[in-house]
């Protein structure tokens, strides 16, 4: 196992109380595994991604642990977490377009970033990775503003993986792209994994059909909790959780994506995470709900590598 997340709880502090955005999520990631993380907007995907690399000022680590390569990550301590960042855990942000300092030439920025982490810049390696993503080497002498959107995205992908992290988190990096560019990004990420630039990866998207092209395993979240986790083909072809089933059936055809038919096909809205009522959080919208659903359904491994949190599936 590269990564083990155990009963992780991360809340947002707000004036009205804590938003329980990540409420007891457990899962593992093997070497070389790519995990697709899916679910409606607001279900806590970004929160999980941030929890693994950098909590923002309003988030607090309430409980649970994260173990990467056998070491427990001090995720609640911003300073202690620093040595792990970039080298062990890295991130391709949602905002690739603005992720680079606009007033530094890219090459110089990369060098300063590496020096600040006491790493030597291996120029040959950097060049070969630029070649791999088909970026001309002279981009290093340019300012970010001189690059096109696609070039900036590829540059950020190269920077984030330069130190061969064990875990890479990619949060909604394809959302703003057209379909052919999305494919290219997915191919590049796969290439990074196959070449060993990254050991394992969490690919976050609200677009489950895209996840299917890349991920070995898909994890579906609902309202801050894990709903279902299984090999990609199982999730797509034989989902057990009612929520996943609705998600999949609302797709016109797996692998095809229609702009207006993503994860919007399920009637109703997710519950507020401010003071969620006990019990299954999906039960207001669940067609199969029954009395037992007033209790929290624990995640159960119904078959090998297939975890479902639903009373009906167990």
């Amino acid at each position, binding site marked *: 196992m590269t990564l083990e997340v155990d009963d992780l709880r991360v809340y947002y502090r707000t004036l009205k109380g804590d938003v329980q955005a990540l409420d007891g999520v457990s899962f593992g990631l093997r070497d070389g595994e790519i995990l697709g993380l899916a679910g409606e907007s607001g279900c806590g995907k970004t929160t999980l991604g941030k929890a693994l690399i950098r909590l923002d000022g309003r988030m607090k680590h309430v409980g649970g642990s994260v173990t990467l390569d056998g070491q427990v990550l001090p995720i609640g301590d911003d300073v202690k977490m620093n040595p792990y960042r970039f080298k062990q855990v890295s991130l391709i942000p949602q905002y690739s377009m603005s992720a680079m300092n*606009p007033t530094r030439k890219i090459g110089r920025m990369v060098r300063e*970033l590496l020096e600040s982490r006491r790493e030597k810049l291996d120029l040959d390696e950097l060049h070969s990775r630029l070649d791999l993503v088909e970026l001309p080497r002279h981009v290093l002498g340019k300012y970010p503003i001189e690059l096109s959107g696609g070039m900036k995205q590829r540059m950020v992908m190269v920077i984030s993986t330069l130190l061969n992290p064990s875990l890479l988190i990619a949060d909604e990096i394809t959302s703003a792209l057209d379909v052919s560019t999305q494919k290219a990004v997915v191919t590049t990420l796969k290439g990074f994994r196959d070449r060993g630039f990254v050991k394992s990866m969490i690919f976050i998207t609200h677009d489950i059909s895209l996840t299917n092209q890349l991920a070995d395993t898909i994890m579906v979240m609902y309202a801050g909790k894990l709903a279902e986790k299984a090999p990609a083909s199982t999730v797509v072809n034989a989902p057990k959780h009612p929520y996943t089933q609705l998600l999949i059936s609302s797709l016109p055809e797996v692998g095809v994506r229609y702009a207006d038919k993503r994860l919007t096909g399920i009637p109703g809205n997710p519950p507020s995470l401010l003071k969620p009522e006990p019990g299954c959080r999906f039960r207001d919208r669940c067609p199969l709900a029954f009395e037992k659903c007033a209790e929290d359904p624990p995640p159960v491994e119904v078959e090998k590598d297939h975890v479902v949190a639903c009373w009906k599936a167990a």
Partner: protein
Amino acid sequence: MRRYFGRKLLIYGLTFFMAVTVNWLVPRLMPGDPVASMLARARVAQPEAQEALRVYYNNLFGFDLPWWQQYLNSWGSLFRGDFGISLWAFPTPVADLLTRAVPYSLALLIPSILLSWVVGNRLGALAARRKVLDNTVLPVSYVLTATPYLWLAALMAWGFGVVWGIFPVAGGYSFSMTPSLTWAFLVDLFWHWLLPFASLFLVALGGWAIGMRNVIIYELESDYANYMSALGAPQKLIRRYAFRNAVLPQITGLALQLGVLVAGALVTEIVFSYPGLGSLILAAIQNKDFFLLQGAFLFIVLGVLIANFIIDVVYVIVDPRTRVGMAGAAA
């Protein structure tokens, strides 16, 4: 980049053109014979000069010529550096009075602007870093920036000059001195310069500190800062980047504040009877010397335009984005 400068120069050119035109127009809009009425209102030092002035100014205004020729003539004399003759200090040409005063004004303005900008930016950046500093620097800065220049000047003149008697409170140098390149004179000059400079510096300082603090906090929350933090870059590097980028809007801010700073210098000079343009303007207003006033106006406009242009050049040097021609500073 060429487009950027082209646009800027066009604006400055138009501004100057408008200033000269207004300057030409305003006296002509006054009812009656402007020369006669101005001479009547002015306090001319020597009565026998009245007649000479009347002849001279009727000639200068050239009222018998068609208006467009009058207008062109005024540009002609402007390019010859002829601003007319002062009524108050007859028969000294206005241009002479102004060129004598300008060095004193610049000696106050340039150091106080540059130093307050540099120190204020540093202070603001420090304030953005530490809560303790933020809670002290910020309130003090707000008080300073809300203080009228002239009042701080008056307080300092009173406190340091009258009550404690450490500094002289009037003039550019002591009455007993004659300007010369001796140490004694330079020290005297410096001693007279210090208080007006300090009061200008302090008021301006507050604004820069507040501005820098706000911009840098904004920069520290920007995407690139978040990305660097996620990659474990030390705060030192992120702050360096943020400061560097926050300086850019502060340079633009400098251009925007020039008018206020010049105004501050003018009234500060008046408080200290410092022999710069401010004191000259006060004399012009008190003695109704409109020619002197108009000359001072054009000098100040021209000075501010030149300063704006210098700031534009600096901006292009500091912001690479304007150089690669992909984006410009706010016009």
